[in-house]
């Protein structure tokens, strides 16, 4: 293996580690702010609502969705929908929202 191969592998490892830590940051935001409504269980209004809306055509749990993209996630966090109120930047900062959006979109990989 030549030095370029090492560099490529090294870069891939760094990129993967970076993606993992970004995903972890996004998961932390999800657990802090979203899970109480969008986690599993019959007492989670977000999950209940999405289940009733999509009737099983897409998963009711956001973390299991494969069709979300960052723009969609950001839109709902900053605009809310029905009973869900928007989140302010003192609650979820722009950087945290980037991480959350990446995490929920990351699931499709």
């Amino acid at each position, binding site marked *: 293996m030549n030095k370029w191969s090492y560099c490529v592998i090294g870069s891939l490892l760094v990129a993967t580690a970076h993606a993992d830590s970004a995903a972890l940051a996004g998961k932390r935001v999800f657990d802090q702010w979203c899970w*109480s*409504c969008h986690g599993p*269980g*019959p*007492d*989670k*209004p977000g999950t*209940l*609502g*999405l289940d*009733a*809306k999509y009737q099983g055509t897409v998963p009711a749990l956001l973390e299991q969705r494969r069709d979300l993209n960052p723009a969609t996630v950001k839109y709902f966090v*900053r605009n*809310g929908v*029905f*009973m*869900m*109120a*928007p*989140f*302010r*930047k*003192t*609650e979820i900062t722009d950087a945290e929202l980037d991480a959350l959006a990446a995490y929920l979109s990351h699931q499709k990989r």
Partner: protein
Amino acid sequence: MRVPPNVTTKVFNEALRSFEAAVGKSWVFTSEEDTALYKDAYSPFFGEPEERWVSAAVAPATVDEVRQVMRIANQHRIPIYPISTGRNLGYGGSAPVYSGSVVLDLKRMNRILEVNETNATCLVEPGVSYFDLYRYIREHKLKVWIDCPDPGWGSLIGNALDRGNGYTMAPYRDHFGSHCGMEVVLADGDLVRTGMGALPGAKTWQQFKYGFGPYLDGLFSQSNLGVVTKMGFWLMPQPDAFRSGTVCVYKYADLFKLVDILAYLEAAKIMTAMTRVESPLLYGAFKAPPPAPELIELRAKPGGPTVAELEAYAQQTDTPYWSVILRFYGSAKLTAAQWEYAQEKFSAIPGAKFRDGDFYEFPLSDAAAEAIMDKAPLGIPSLEAFSMGGRSPVNPSPSQGHIWFSPIIPMSAEAIHECDRVFRAAFKEWGVNPLGLPLPQLYHERTFFQIYGFPITRDPEINRKNRETFQRMIKLAADHGWGEYRTAPAFMDSIMDVYSFNDHALRRTCERVKDALDPNGILSAGRYGIWPKHLRKNTQ
């Protein structure tokens, strides 16, 4: 950028620059996109000119920064509206009462300063939510419980100051009543500590409420006289066990004895938890499955079913006319004895039946705690309440929020019947049908709350009609001696108006205090119907 009323752009810009110097540029929000996040998501004026708007938001991280912001606002006469977590949905959320105010967003002040397990007390900042404190307690395996309101993301301080309530034993579920000690920044930036906090180096700030001299704490609840930056609370020591049981009675007239016995058990501190009087026969019990088709048919009978018909159905199908869930905290033995004693008392009602309910011993694992469906009586925060009005299999058309009309009525069967009769007749006459939990809730000791809900929609005409009904209910309730305990900004003036003893002496007194503590009238103008001198209207 929008400018607050009665403030020039030049002065506002100067104030904003000073705010930026105090808290950092990234924590002063002025763009349309950012200030829109502070609108009340559950506003009954949604999309109408009266919908409250925000000129800017400032988010300090420390008490010193709050003091600086208040000094700057006072100097420039900028209207300021503090929020804690801003999640007081249904009661104004993060929006000001006075449009154009600068929101003082305290969410970044989110430190849990102390949890004392031995004394079962805590000291927190305004940005600390019930979820935050619950997670902290579990993480540190502390043997104390919190008492939470329906939404777990609320602030302990914000909810207590708005005189919110929860579900565990009294006195903990009276959130203002269970606080102990405050730190408050006044409109001019001065800093006050109440109770023992006024004694430098006091060892008992969170243990002894009163300190020395006048008890000021009440002035800072449901008011606009200061910015509370720290508050202590008494926590509930973790019990060894929890037990519940249901009392079922089958005749209309049984309500009288049922409430009297409940009142005795509560005042005697034998049953201290939140509960509600339910009628599985008339309305269905809380979280119960849908009623049988025969019962639906009976309820819908033209002219309404007679009491005799309802009682016959109750007996035949074992459907209680009235029921109450009792909840006990203590040990296995103690709660069994309490439940047994309660059954003895309620056995004075002929035909009363008793059903054992849940039993838990503590501590619970995370998984066991999460598996519990009725979390609030165990001090476990959740957001389950937002299922009400949200999309579900039985509600395909979700609302955009809700507001509540909640008059306080006496704890008696007579009052329950009178309230039901008065509002039922009014709704018929007005042609309206509010969402209902038309049954009494025992949130605070010795009284019932009657709760009527209104959905928030995106249709201004429906919202207007609901506001009109709400306003009529305020007056009708007051005519019968029932008053609201808490409300959304849209109704604060109207409710303060009916608390009118001696030519509105309560409001006049509050205004005198307001003028003394906040002579420039910058702080939370209009909150709970108290306006500064320059904005005061004759609203009688």
